[in-house]
């Protein structure tokens, strides 16, 4: 074929093939501005309630003791979230656990305190801090603060550097030294496990909150732990805090913990 005929042919082919394409583009643009726009677009549906909030707990340790629900609270979380039980304090993985007063509120302990308060078990977990140091130090944004206040973990991004464990003053984070499936008697198939080399912690049951349910440990506490939005003055937690005296863990560090502990007179004030 001569160069001239080839070019001519090419131009002809180009022109005919362009026509339907441009016609299609126009017609689809018209369609999408018409009826199609009213139909909902396929893809991810935005259901997340992004209004700024700060979820928090009001914990009545005395009531927990009276009701005897501590083990249920811890057990419910452990089972639902596939938390491995390594049986060794050096490698254990903890989301929520019990500590006596001197470990929970070390800076407030006194030998003159009544023994009941001192010996009582207090549930401790991630405080979902206002100003979380774990988030500040994480180099990969594997841990981040959501607009509703939850300090969330994205295990897919975690590189196991453990900066966050050094940053958290509450020991609320644990590293998986082993494959967690080795230390699970029973696996909950609806929740993923983690892998070796990944850090984990309480997620405030984000998967439940996003579906309008309350955290599991709150449910298991039979009313001894209240859950709600601390920014909302009418929420159950805000009202409870107006009526009782409470303490928080290591406030002086400036992390802004959101777990509030009612220390005395809990039964009368609840």
């Amino acid at each position, binding site marked *: 074929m001569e160069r001239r005929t080839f070019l001519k042919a090419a131009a002809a082919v180009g022109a005919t093939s362009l026509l339907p394409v441009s016609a299609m583009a126009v017609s689809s643009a018209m369609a999408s501005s018409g009826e199609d726009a009213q139909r909902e677009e396929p893809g991810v*549906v935005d259901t997340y309630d992004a209004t700024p909030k700060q979820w928090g707990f009001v914990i009545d340790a005395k009531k927990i003791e009276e009701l005897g629900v501590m083990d249920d609270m811890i057990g419910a979380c452990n089972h639902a979230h596939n938390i491995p039980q390594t049986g060794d304090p050096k490698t254990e993985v903890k989301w929520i656990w019990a500590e006596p007063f001197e470990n929970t509120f070390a800076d407030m302990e006194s030998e003159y305190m009544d023994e009941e308060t001192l010996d009582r078990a207090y549930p401790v977990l991630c405080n979902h801090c206002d100003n979380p140091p774990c988030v500040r130090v994480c180099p990969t944004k594997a841990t981040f603060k959501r607009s509703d206040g939850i300090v969330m973990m994205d295990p897919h991004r975690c590189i196991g550097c453990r900066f966050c464990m050094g940053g958290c003053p509450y020991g609320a984070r644990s590293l998986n030294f082993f494959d967690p499936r080795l230390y699970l008697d029973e696996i909950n*198939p609806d929740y993923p496990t983690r892998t070796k080399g990944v850090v984990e912690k309480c997620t405030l049951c984000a998967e439940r909150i996003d579906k309008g349910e309350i955290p599991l440990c709150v449910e298991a506490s039979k009313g001894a732990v209240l859950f709600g939005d601390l920014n909302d003055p009418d929420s159950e937690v805000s009202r409870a805090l107006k009526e009782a005296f409470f303490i928080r863990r290591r406030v002086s560090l400036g992390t802004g913990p959101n777990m509030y502990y009612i220390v005395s007179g809990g039964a009368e004030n609840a």
Partner: protein
Amino acid sequence: MTKKWTIGIFVVILIGIFAIPFLVNAGRVDGDPDVSLDTPQINALEVKECIEPTDYMRESHMVLLDEWRNSVVRDGNYEYRSQSGQIYEMSLDETCLGCHSNQADFCDKCHEYSSVDLYCWQCHGTIDEENPNAVIENGDDVLFTEKA
């Protein structure tokens, strides 16, 4: 003359080396991966269709899963509207692996064929139908299953 001979010999050796993979694989026929859809949940479906058309899922499930993961973990969104308008929960464990509970005969088939080595199953899809509480060791990941 000797120089030409030397060059010739080395050219032949070189061609021989490059031909090794072709010779080794000559005559070998690898059929398409044979994936199985024989699972209890799929068998129970009236209309056997995935959340999106099969061709799209075959080519782009990884893109879809990446979007799902980020939407759920980072943005707190859990719902996905398919091309057909149906709403599905964006859950690898419940939605995808609920039906495709046969990792070895479904997922692994194509991944092995295309030499893709994944570690989704270290965390997701924990259930061995016969023995639901068993620890599943995933081939290469035995490294991750050594107890202290």
